[in-house]
């Protein structure tokens, strides 16, 4: 096995494998000899992990015990049968009846007990309330007012509430493969419809504030996933989508599939590439999800007219990509170590509206570096920033952020207001770093504006 392949396997184990590396790893698996080597290495690493794991059995029990709160076991059938028998045998004999009936009562009790035992053995036993969803991964998240344990997956039952902090996120995983990621500043309650003991109950998520993105597998007929927000309800049958609660209402963007959005008895079906807003004072309508304001892929090798700082270079290799933008070094400068600046000469890049999104591929090196994104605000005469700490260095990573989340460093309560002119955009690494920065495939999108196209009503 080559060191490169070993690195890919390590990344796979750490769940930090990017899509291009995953494809390389999967392609390598096509070779039977490599497959055997990879499988054997994964098994060996698992065994080393289990052997060296320093945690004791009590840690496992504590995690299991937490999951078992409120769960009753199927106790032995004999115990139930005994209990029923005891109850009947202890019951006072009805007045006026001859005592000779007691053997009949006991016989009836025994028969009933046997019937219950047989019923339980047949698999239709009394079951405990099933967990609705598993909190698989999280950061800065509280469950029912307590800090969530980030080291173990936590089953959640109906009624559990989640509060994700300003820098947090939480990944929920349902039994059928459906996943939902709660974004920063989100408050949500887990709920479910149907029989509390049913393991495949209708999924219900109540979102009080914040945002979520989800990949929903096909839901059973008549039991769609329901997302309830203060402004309405999204009914999901199987799709990828993003939902955010904003000052204007609940905004739904569907990437793939279809989601029904319901408000005050009115409903619209939002399909892939479309969006809709459920808010006070606005009728439900479907629009294209987003309009491209700017798209830079620099694949022609030419310097785009909006690129004010940065140079076009081949950069770190990637399948299907020839060029990218290299950050420009700022020697002796107290600001960023190297940066890319995008700006128009005589007019703003765009006018801010809630939901404006900036996405780009990023590659940078250095242990101490952070990527920061800054936008000059001409009215406030300050830079509005979003510090981003990507998980990966030395490989391509897609960053996608909402301009709604940019904040003034002098006043974190303030960000952009609708109508603000945005003149330039600055992607840079922090001052102390001496590494490299490359960016590519930069896209600025904005939610579709009313009037751009005729919206499709309910």
């Amino acid at each position, binding site marked *: 096995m080559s*060191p490169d392949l*070993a*690195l890919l396997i*390590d990344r796979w*184990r*750490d769940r*930090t494998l990017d*899509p291009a590396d*995953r494809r390389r790893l*999967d392609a390598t*698996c*096509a070779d039977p000899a490599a*497959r055997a080597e*990879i*499988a*054997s*290495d*994964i*098994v*060996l*690493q*698992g*065994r*080393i*992990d*289990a*052997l*060296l*794991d*320093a945690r004791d*059995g*009590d840690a*496992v*029990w504590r*995690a*299991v*015990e937490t*999951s*078992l709160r409120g*769960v009753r*076991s*199927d*106790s*032995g059938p004999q*115990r139930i049968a005994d209990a029923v028998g005891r109850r009947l045998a202890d019951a006072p004999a009805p007045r006026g009846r001859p005592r000779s009936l007691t053997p009949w009562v006991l016989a009836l009790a025994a028969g009933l007990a046997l019937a219950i035992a047989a019923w*339980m053995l047949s698999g239709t*036993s009394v*079951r405990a309330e099933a967990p609705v969803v*598993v909190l698989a991964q999280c950061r800065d998240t509280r469950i029912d007012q307590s800090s969530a344990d980030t080291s*173990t*997956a936590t*089953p959640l039952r109906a009624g559990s509430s989640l509060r994700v902090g300003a820098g947090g996120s939480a990944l929920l995983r349902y039994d059928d*493969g459906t996943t939902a990621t709660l974004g920063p500043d989100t408050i949500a309650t887990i709920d479910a419809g149907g029989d509390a003991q049913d393991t495949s109950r209708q999924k219900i998520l109540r979102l009080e504030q914040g945002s979520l993105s989800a*990949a929903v*597998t096909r839901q059973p007929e008549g039991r769609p996933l329901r997302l309830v927000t203060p402004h309405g309800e999204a009914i999901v049958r199987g799709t990828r989508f993003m939902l955010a609660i904003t000052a204007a209402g609940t905004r739904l963007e569907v990437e793939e599939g279809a989601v029904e959005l319901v408000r005050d008895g009115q409903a619209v079906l939002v399909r892939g590439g479309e969006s809709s807003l459920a808010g006070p004072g606005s009728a439900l309508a479907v629009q294209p999800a987003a309009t491209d304001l700017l798209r830079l892929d620099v694949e022609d090798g030419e310097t785009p007219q909006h690129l004010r700082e940065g140079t076009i270079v081949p950069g770190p290799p990637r399948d299907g990509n020839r060029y990218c933008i290299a950050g420009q070094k700022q020697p002796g400068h107290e600001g960023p170590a190297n940066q890319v600046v995008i700006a128009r000469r005589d007019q703003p890049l765009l006018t801010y509206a809630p939901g404006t999104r900036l996405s780009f591929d990023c590659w940078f090196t250095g*242990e101490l570096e952070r990527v920061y994104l800054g936008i000059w605000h001409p009215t406030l005469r300050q830079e509005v920033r979003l510090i981003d700490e990507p*998980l*990966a*260095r*030395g490989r391509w990573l897609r960053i996608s952020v909402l301009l709604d989340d940019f904040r003034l460093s002098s006043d974190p309560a303030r960000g952009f207001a609708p109508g603000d002119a945005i003149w330039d955009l600055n992607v840079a690494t922090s001052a102390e770093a001496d590494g490299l920065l490359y960016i590519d495939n930069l896209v600025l999108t904005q939610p579709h504006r009313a009037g751009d196209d005729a919206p499709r009503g309910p």
Partner: protein
Amino acid sequence: MEAADARRIDELVVAAQAGDRDAFRLLVLATERDLRIAIAAHAGSRDAADEALQHTYVAAFEKLAQYRPSLSFCAWLRAIARNHLVDRWRESRRLAALDGAVLDELVAASAEDALERADAEREAEAQTRKLRACLERLPERSRQLLERRYQDGQSLDQLAQRFHRTAKLLSVALFRVRQVLRRCLETGA
């Protein structure tokens, strides 16, 4: 597993089936290490192994009445774990359908096969004994590196930050230690 251990586990199962939660706690303590070793070999990561372990015991608790003492309790737990792992890998493959996720399917198949075999427990025990001996023979520095990665459960990026090395360099170092272990397992040397 020794016959005495097996008898004790059966006694604990009977007590747990009768509603004794402390007996179930003792069952978890008595079986978790072996089950972790069996699961971890096919889980792909420590987090996934933890999740599978937790899921297995919760499912076992909920289905305790269905367990028949004619089957080994550990084998029953492994069957629950195997089903969970196979489902998880398939789910992961489904979610990553566009990328192919051949590796996830490969690990799923390996887990299904390895955990299903009748001699799985014996084989895991034998491999674990050998591996323990091989780990003890490692030079101190190699062992320390392994401990950081596996005992503390640190990711490659966390290690790289801690040791001021690149992730690739550390991955190569870990890979070489695993090669030494592999040779030791194969030849006993």
